């Protein structure tokens, strides 16, 4: 402790007045990470709540840990399954093995590292340029971005997508707190449209690099459940597999269960908005029910099959759960008003399932639905605020009459 304090004290002159002036934001970010500074309240209320932005952000990261760890196991599991190298035994003994975990960790930890380096470098540059402290927003984005990427995406694409998201998703609007779009989804959308072959299809969700003495299992398909649904309206994966997450998909999105753990934590701690999560789920269920009831009158075919997928199963397949819990709830890009959050979440859920079912080109509708609603969130807020204004005007008119 003393050691770190001395280190920061010793290097401070160099970055405040000395040659390394440009590094001050970095120094400040690191120092405030090690030590919450001894600032005392200087105006207004004299006592303050012990929460700060760093603690808020780290809470979200804690909530992501189950999905992250599960993603590491699953990456290895899918890989060894494709190569037919799974050990004998039941599913759980096959799944929770050290080799699965190590395989996933060796893939995913570099992705996280690259994301942080790319994103934080830009954040620190802008902190220096605009003379403010480094905001903590990227702490969460840096974990979210790898979790919504396929396992085999090259690291440089992760870096470019992250850089794009931070620059054009966030900094051009004025930095943390000002962005319109969710930065993590901006990164994914960029990768999705810039490198479609690495972001969609049947081949990318499972690492199938051959290993010594192993070939890809005959008849193996690496398609995700949603990919299968979009082409044939049916999937090989059971809803339970999808719920527990033993299916191919983006790294962190597969296990609805692990995401639910995170959701429970976020709601209980109060950092994530339960209103958005609940209303997104309600929106998804509503659209699912509409499809179910309309499916009977459709001509038989893939679309009819897809539409008759039991409505609740939409919540388990693909990135719906991850989007509802971790993406739609980003407080900056979501609706800001409490009433607006209900509308916003409901429409996110509704559109996710709508896009997913009706547009086979985008098997995962959640990303586009959330980005779309991000754009509309200020409009929703506008009407909620306007309602408050009209109420006041009405009161005034009543008074005058």
């Amino acid at each position: 402790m003393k050691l770190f304090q001395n280190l920061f004290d010793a290097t401070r002159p160099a970055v405040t007045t000395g040659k390394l002036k440009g590094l001050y934001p970095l120094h400040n970010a690191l120092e405030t990470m090690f030590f919450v500074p001894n600032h005392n309240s200087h105006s207004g209320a004299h006592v303050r709540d012990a929460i700060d932005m760093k603690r808020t952000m780290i809470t979200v990261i804690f909530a992501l840990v189950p999905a992250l760890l599960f993603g590491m196991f699953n990456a290895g599991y899918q890989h060894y399954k494709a190569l037919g190298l799974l050990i004998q035994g039941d599913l759980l003994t096959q799944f929770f093995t050290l080799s699965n975990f190590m395989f996933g960790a060796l893939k995913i930890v570099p992705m996280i590292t690259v994301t942080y380096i790319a994103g934080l470098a830009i954040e620190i540059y802008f902190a220096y340029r605009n003379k403010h402290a480094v905001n903590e927003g990227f702490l969460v984005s840096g974990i979210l971005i790898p979790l919504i990427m396929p396992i085999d995406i090259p690291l440089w694409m992760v870096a470019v997508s992250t850089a794009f998201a931070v620059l054009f998703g966030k900094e051009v609007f004025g930095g943390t707190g000002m962005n319109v779009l969710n930065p993590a989804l901006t990164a994914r959308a960029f990768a999705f449209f810039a490198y479609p072959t690495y972001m969609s299809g049947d081949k990318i969700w499972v690492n199938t690099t051959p290993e010594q003495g192993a070939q890809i299992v005959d008849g193996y398909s690496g398609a995700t459940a949603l990919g299968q649904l979009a082409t044939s309206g049916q999937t090989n994966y059971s809803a339970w597999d999808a719920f527990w997450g033993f299916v191919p998909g983006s790294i962190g999105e597969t296990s609805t269960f692990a995401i639910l753990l995170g959701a429970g934590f976020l709601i209980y701690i109060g950092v994530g908005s339960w209103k958005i999560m609940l209303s997104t789920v309600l929106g998804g269920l509503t659209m699912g029910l509409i499809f179910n009831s309309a499916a009977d009158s459709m001509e038989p075919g893939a679309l009819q099959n897809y539409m008759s997928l039991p409505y609740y199963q939409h919540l388990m397949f693909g990135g719906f759960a991850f989007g509802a819990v971790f993406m739609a709830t980003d407080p900056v890009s979501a609706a800001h008003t409490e009433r607006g959050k209900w509308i916003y979440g409901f429409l996110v859920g509704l559109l996710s399932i709508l896009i997913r079912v009706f547009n086979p080109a985008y098997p995962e509708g959640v990303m586009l639905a959330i980005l779309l609603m991000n754009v509309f969130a200020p409009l929703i807020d506008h009407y909620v605020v306007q309602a408050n204004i009209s109420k006041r005007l009405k009161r005034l008119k009543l008074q005058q009459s």
Partner: protein
Amino acid sequence: MSNFHIVRKGLDLPILGAPEALVDGHLSASVYAVRPSDFRGLVPKLAVKEGDRVLAGDVLFTDKADPRIRVTSPVSGEVARIERGDKRKILGVVVLADSQQEYRKFTSGTPASREDAINWLLESGAWSLVESRPYGRIASPDAEPKAVFVNGMATEPLAVAPAVALAGREEDFAMGLQVVSLLSKRTVLSIAASETAPALTKASGVELHQFKGPHPSGTTSVHINQISPINKGEVVWTLNYQDVAVIGHLARTGSFKLERVVALCGTGFAKPRAITAVAGANLENYLGSELKSGNFRVISGSVLSGANVGKAGYLTYYASQLTAIPEGEGTDFFGWVLPSMGKWSVSRTLFSWLTPNKKFDLNTKQHGEDRAFVVTGVYDKVFPLDILPMPLIKAMWAKDLEKMEQLGAYEVVPEDFALCEVVCPSKQELQKLAGDAIDLLYTEMN
């Protein structure tokens, strides 16, 4: 319309150092100061010079914008000095108090009419106790308020219960209410649902309303918002129950004695309790024997909105609390991620929610640095007014007067944002922001 109101949103700070419910002692001081900065928006025009003798009730300065508004000396004595700052701005008028207090005599008895009452209050300087909404300034005597709101509650952290503060002054309070009810057609007295003091529960000649709930259920803004919200163009006058008793005393005796029951509260005091004190009293000598040793911040007012006056400072003009809490010291090693037991947070990101009844020795630490707004919905939980706090704050930030007006800026005073400021994870200075914005609105509208 029901006269019983339940306020659900809000927060009672779990802070140690509550004062004992007895009035014991008097803040004796030999030096007093009245500071123009205690009066929002008032530009002083001096009526005395150094060396002048004044009686308690003699004018010290008037408002440049309206010379009828006088601020009078709380004590008799000699004007020792005029404290000035940059550009000779008047910071305070310091009076060396006589050992035997002499009061200037005003007419006693209840005034006959509204006009008489206003003139009599203006003359004595007791008009300074009448605040006007919107803008939270000393009322303009020309305005025609739709109602006068008397606040008979004290829900600020560590405040003294009105029953304690009014004990022995029931007659003054009743007489004060008579005077105040002359000022408008409608006089509202708001009291706590649990109030027992007959002076309040049996007050006559007023419309009685009861409020239940956590702070800010006892603030005038909440009362007005629930009973008769302010529309554009409307004016409401507000008074505190202790100031009504001061006015009653003036009516009864003819002396303007600006003495209140003041809570000595916070963990900095050896014996937190209530005392009597005259506004403007110098604290230096008195605090020496009352404060524990250690580094404490002395606040004239509550921990939410009081002024940091320092150990050698003066009690502010309107204060009914004197709070001493420890100054925060030292940095916290990884304080943002470690469980940090013993720290308090309204959120569940720390562990204080496990012990909901535990009180904390809260200090002045900010617990983090200023950041952009990120989290939403935090303010709403502690802001019971029928106003959207975040949009209003953003309008204030942008100095968008039209939006401010539409979103209810006429109904708020800076203190209403104190709890938002306490819970804000981005550590924004909301009271200062609101104060500047409301002042700007005043300048543009008048």
